[in-house]
């Protein structure tokens, strides 16, 4: 995608070259405290629960406002799971890990070793 990289976030994080099981996008609007919290929460969750199974892309709507309509973004932050289908969304700063996992429909597995 065309999302321009920002200093404070790494637009794409993936730990595999293959097409991963989970393809995630986090939509934010600028570097707000909610955005930063959400990104930190998400990165931690991915590393601990989805290691080796995901690709994460961060979209800053202030830079790419035209991308908001495509994924029907209203609230920010919004985490979108595009793959696997059907599309799922989690809105908010992702502070409750269990609810994020429910939202992403991830089988709850024991934590991976860090």
């Amino acid at each position, binding site marked *: 995608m065309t999302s321009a990289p920002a200093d404070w976030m790494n637009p794409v994080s993936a730990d595999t070259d293959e097409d991963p099981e989970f393809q995630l996008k986090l*939509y934010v*609007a600028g570097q707000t405290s*909610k955005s930063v*919290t*959400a990104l930190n*929460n998400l990165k931690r969750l991915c590393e601990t629960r989805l290691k080796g199974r995901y690709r994460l892309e961060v979209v800053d*709507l*202030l830079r790419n*406002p*035209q991308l*908001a*309509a495509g994924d*029907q*973004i*209203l*609230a*920010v*932050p*919004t985490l979108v799971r595009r793959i696997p289908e*059907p*599309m*799922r*969304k*989690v*809105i*908010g*700063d*992702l*502070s*409750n890990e269990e*609810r*994020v996992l*429910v*939202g992403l429909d991830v089988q709850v597995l024991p934590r991976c070793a860090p």
Partner: protein
Amino acid sequence: MHADTSAATPTADEARSPRALDTPPSGPSGLAKTATGITGLDEITNGGLPRGRPTLVCGSAGCGKTMLAAEFIVRGAAQYGEPGVFMMFEETAEELSANVRSLGFDLDALQQQGQVALDYVRVERSEIEETGEYDLEGLFIRIGHAVDRIGAKRVVLDTIEALFAGLPNHAVLRAELRRLFRWLKDRGLTTVITGERGEASLTRFGLEEYVADCVILLDHRIIDQVSTRRLRVVKYRGSAHGTNEYPFLIGHRGISVVPITSMRLDHAASDERVGTGIEGLDAMLSGRGVHRGASVLVSGAPGTGKSSLGVAFAHAACLRGERTLLFAYEESPDQLRRNMRSIGVDLAGWQARGLLDIHASRPTLYGIEQHLVHMYDLVRERRPAVVVIDPISNLTMTREDRMLKPSLMRLVDFLKQVGVTALFTDVTNDTDVSVLDAELGISSLMDTWIRVSNVSDGGERARAIRVLKSRGMPHSNHNAELVFTTRGLQVKGSS
């Protein structure tokens, strides 16, 4: 909480929106307005919706909210050079385009020309999980992006209440809506927000609490099996507005609110006189007939010759070379032509020469509003000098008179405003006193009132004609006799 909206300060408003000076501000306060282009609505609101501010349009399902909002956008783009953004929360852009295409609005073309931007906002509760804090900046960004892309001056949010079903946290939603309406205002966008009618409040989720500037209520009901739409301006901060319920229609050219003119008494009064087509009757009216631009009422029982008087009036106008519209609510054009030939009037000839239009229909079929709108349209289109409505009582008898009287009064008023000399016939029974009472409502609007009645005299029936009133001229107080001949109507014994 409405501190921002309380002052109707035209200077601040105009400063925000440079276009404000293009259209003359109206209303005593000089509040800048944005014309909707919707027939009748701009008259009721003295110029349109508050410029650069949000207006709430509410009503139950199917009342025409979306149509009104769409017309506001389309006419803004096509007629006023104001591009518009339509954010829809319930139907898709394709559905909306299809729905308004039937009214002759081509949203697709306007979209391609960059005059209109459509964005369908879908919120699916089942696919959303919520955790932690969020705001609706995404929606702001979408609106802002669309507005910036086409340089929009107008925005529609239809129906933003759909968000209440999609987003679980209503506290956040309410705070964000308040911020959104404020933001739209700060950007000087003239916005229409639609809302579903609630049971105890104007809108189901109380949006009226956030939109303080202008609230319009639409209503759709069935009365005597006839579908009836009404519009009312509930509130308009800083501006005078009509407070009545106004009938409106969704016709083939969009929405028409029926009272095209408000009731005013500022029409020009002409000293010119026009003949009634009957010499003896002209004689009763100080020899010269009625004033041009006057409203003439001819009342009487069935069979007294009212229609013939109306036709004679139209015939006289055609003889003068004036364009005439004849609305016949009891006879088909063919029947009318045949009957009138018997008294020496060749209606078909006038029609062929393009001087006369005959419109015959039964008002019960569609309801009064449709007929009134049709009449307004025809009068505007054909610009006749003379209009004959035969009988106007057919427009009133089918439905609750109480509700119709204002509409009819406005029709009379409208014809006066545009300088049309109008003759209305009115069917009454032959008992004098009660009829006078019943007719008072409409007759007080009339400049000249002629009454025809049956009189039995020694086994012979005759028709008596009498001028009950005629403003601004001396007139006969006597009964005269109305006689039908093959060469037309005659009035005998007039002094």
